[in-house]
């Protein structure tokens, strides 16, 4: 993939997910980690935006961060794939660059 974008803050608290989704190009990947995984819960106000973006970008959420916040696999929006730290490393290695939205 061209760019792996990482977002680590809750989209309810900060604008970093919104700003990232607006600038991620088709074919890019977006990884939600730390508090950002909160946006990937089914029924969250950001579930729709993530599902829509998933039409052109691959969206991932870090499984250990989901688990820490009590979000089970079946609670995650279907358009979002879960990865562990090893999968995060693979995504970073496969991308041409990694862009952190801090």
């Amino acid at each position, binding site marked *: 993939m061209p760019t792996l974008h990482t977002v680590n803050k809750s989209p309810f608290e900060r604008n970093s997910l919104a700003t990232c989704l607006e600038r991620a190009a088709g074919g890019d990947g977006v990884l939600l980690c730390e508090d950002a995984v909160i946006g990937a819960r089914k029924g969250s106000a950001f579930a729709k935006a993530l599902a829509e973006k998933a039409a052109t970008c691959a969206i991932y959420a870090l499984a250990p961060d989901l688990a820490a916040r009590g979000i089970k696999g079946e609670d995650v929006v279907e358009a979002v794939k879960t990865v562990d730290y090893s999968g995060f490393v693979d995504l970073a*290695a496969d991308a041409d660059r*990694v862009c952190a939205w801090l």
Partner: protein
Amino acid sequence: MRFAIVVNEGPYTHQASDSAWQFAKAALAKGHEIFRVFFYHDGVNNATRYTVPPQDDRNLQKLWSELAAEHELDLVVCIAAAQRRGILDADEAKRQGKDGDNIAPGFRISGLGQLIEAGIQADRLVTFGD
């Protein structure tokens, strides 16, 4: 593949240092090389040996020092950021007229050029922060 990692937040207050450590560990486990871990902004606060976290919690400074010892990691603390935040090694303490130092084993203090060099030398640079 050769990674560089940037850590922009101190231990505990934000998850950045934990995430960076987990990423580094996973990358090493997959056989990747880590060219350098660069600690910038409040990230320099990971490098103090004066921390005493609760016994039942992780000790991030020790986790970094141990990972560095095991894999010969280059843990670089930005000197300008360290000066603002009170992280000193013996040389810096002497140079600044301070009566002690607090840097932890496995970390070294150096300039911002080390961050640029990491960007040049590494295949991928991954940043963790607030």
